[in-house]
Every structure is written in C-alpha cells, then in structure tokens.
C-alpha cells in the first residue's frame, strides 16, 4: 500500500521542518508532499535546503486549492491512501496508523480523525465556540445525509483510491472539509471516524475569534446545504 501524507503549508517556517522530520522518523515507508501555498516567509527556502519533497504553488490558492493539489499529486503517482496532515504540528503522526486502518480493512472510503469522540484523550479540544460550531454543522450533516459526523471540520483525514480520484477532479474551495465530507456522503461513499489526539500549535498562531466562528458556521451551513441539493445519490457498495 502506497501511502502519501499531504501537508498544506502557508507561512510555516517555524514548524514545517520539525513536522517533516517527525514523519521521516515515524516511518520510512510513508511518503509525504508539502504543498507550499505561496508562503511569504522562509518556508520555500527551508523546503529546498533540506530536500523535503514539496510542490511550490505558483500563486496562493488557499487551503482548499492547496490540498487539492496534494490529491492531484496522489492521483498522478497512483497512491492507495492519501492523508491530509497539517503543517503546523497540530496533528499527531502516531495516529496515522489508526486513521489508515479502516481503509486497509476495506471498511471505509474516507476516514476522519476526530477530536471529540469519547475514547479520545485529546489534549487539545479547541475553544467552546468552535465546539459549538462543530456541533451545529454536524447536526446539519445528520439532517442532510443521515449520518453523524462528530468533527466535520477536522483537517486530519485519510482517503482511499476512489476518494483521491473524486477529490483530484473536484474539491470545494470555500469550506473544504465539511463540504467535501457532505459531497462524499451524498455520493454514497462510506465515511467513518477515528478518535485522534490533536496538539496545540507549537509555534505560530491560529486566528479564530468568536465572531469568525459564528460567521464560519453560518456560511458552512449554507454551503453544505447548497452542495447537498446538487448531488444525485449514487448507490455504492
């Protein structure tokens, strides 16, 4: 099984090298590709100097476009599993095994690494507003797709070959995680969740205020609603 880690990175000069070294230490069988989304800091030179496998986007595309580039890369090089992995050190590399398991066993097409599942002893649960937002989005998804997705905004996900192909062709750019999950559910792919641990950012800062959470939530709800209208259900095994 060829496994690829897709690492979108935008201005991650403080984290990217450590993240890549962690991956190399974790397993030599796993490939990774850093998608440098037009960073304005030293990310590019760090990637080049240390010979980390990377793609430099010629123009900034935002997280959706960057991640899709990774899926295109995975599709081009015939990977069996592609895992989205943040370049800021939030995701724990030790859970890669867990997140791949349902795909290897043939139980799922798309696996989401979830922070909020009870079994998870996650050290980082994120703020109250974000959790509330996640709850509401997952409620919307349950209404629209009849399946519970506890952590629809999680960026730690694994995709099998069929999903890689779907994402390489079409990937939402506005709110990629929840939107793509809804699209795949609507198309009849099997989506499961696996509890993972997420760490707090080691360096750099993440910009989330209560207002942006509310704004985000409303727009995501609308977006997934619109997404779900356009898709005809295809039956799949």
């Amino acid at each position, binding site marked *: 099984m060829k496994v690829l880690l897709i690492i979108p990175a935008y201005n991650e000069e403080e984290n990217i090298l450590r993240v890549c070294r962690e991956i190399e230490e974790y397993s030599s069988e796993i490939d990774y590709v850093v998608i440098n989304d037009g960073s304005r800091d030293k990310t590019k030179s760090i990637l080049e100097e240390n010979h980390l496998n990377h793609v430099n986007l*010629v123009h900034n595309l935002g997280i959706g476009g960057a991640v899709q580039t990774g899926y295109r890369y995975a599709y081009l090089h015939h990977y069996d599993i592609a895992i989205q992995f943040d370049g800021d050190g939030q995701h724990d590399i030790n859970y890669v095994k867990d997140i791949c398991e349902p795909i290897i066993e043939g139980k799922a097409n798309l696996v989401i690494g979830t922070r909020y599942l009870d079994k998870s002893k996650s050290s980082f649960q994120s703020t109250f507003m974000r959790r509330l937002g996640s709850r509401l989005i997952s409620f919307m998804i349950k209404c629209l797709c009849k399946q519970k997705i506890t952590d629809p905004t999680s960026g730690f996900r694994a995709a099998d070959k069929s999903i890689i192909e779907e994402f390489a062709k079409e990937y939402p750019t506005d709110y990629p995680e929840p939107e793509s999950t809804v699209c795949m559910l609507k198309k009849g792919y099997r989506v499961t969740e696996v509890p993972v641990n997420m760490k707090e950012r080691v360096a750099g800062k993440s910009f989330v205020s209560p207002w942006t959470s509310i704004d985000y939530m409303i727009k995501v709800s609308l977006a997934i609603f619109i997404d779900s209208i356009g898709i005809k259900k295809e039956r799949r095994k």
Partner: protein
Amino acid sequence: MGLTLRIALIIVTVIYLFFILRAIKHKKVQISFSIFWILTGLVLVIALAIPNLVENISHLLGFELTVNMIFCVAIFICFYLIFNLNIILSKENKKNILLVQEISLLKKRVEDLEEKQKEKNS
C-alpha cells in the same frame, strides 16, 4: 419629452453606439457579449426615433410614470448582467485554480527530472 432633451439623448446615444462599435471592431469584446451591447444601442435608437413609443408602452403596462418603467427595465437588465458576470467570474476562477495547480505540479516534475539527470551525469 421636450425637444432639447430628445436631441441631447440622441447625441448621447450616438456617442454610446460609436464607443460600442469601436470596441467590437477592435475585438475588445467577445462576439457573444457584443450582440447584447448592440441590442441595447438599437433599443435606445428605436425608443428615440418613434415619438411617444415608450410613453405608450408604459401606459399600456400600467406604469404611472414613464420613468418608472425605464428604471424598472434598466435595473432588471443590470441584475441580469451582474449575475451573468458572476457566473463567468466563477468559471474563470475555477480555471485559474486548475492552471496554478497543473503548472505547479509540472514545475515540480521538471525539477525532479533535472535533479535525476544531474545525478546521472555526475
């Protein structure tokens, strides 16, 4: 409509048509869009050439004032135009993203190949 106003409008329309036709001639606008702009010019000419045409139509449709009908029609056309432009913009955006991704992936491939070549040579 007074005579002075009519003459002023005719002059404006002529200038308008001149600019549109010039832009079309210099291929600044796609043919499919230029048809729309020629049509707007023609409608203006007809409305000015036939006296009381616009007044009669607006009366027939039940508008109290002629200007109301003109504004109404103009706003609808503007909405249609903006929406159309929005669709085109979204399409172009999608194409742009695809191009950036493909170029970036190609660049990576070329660089990888160059490196391999260098290793072979040395």
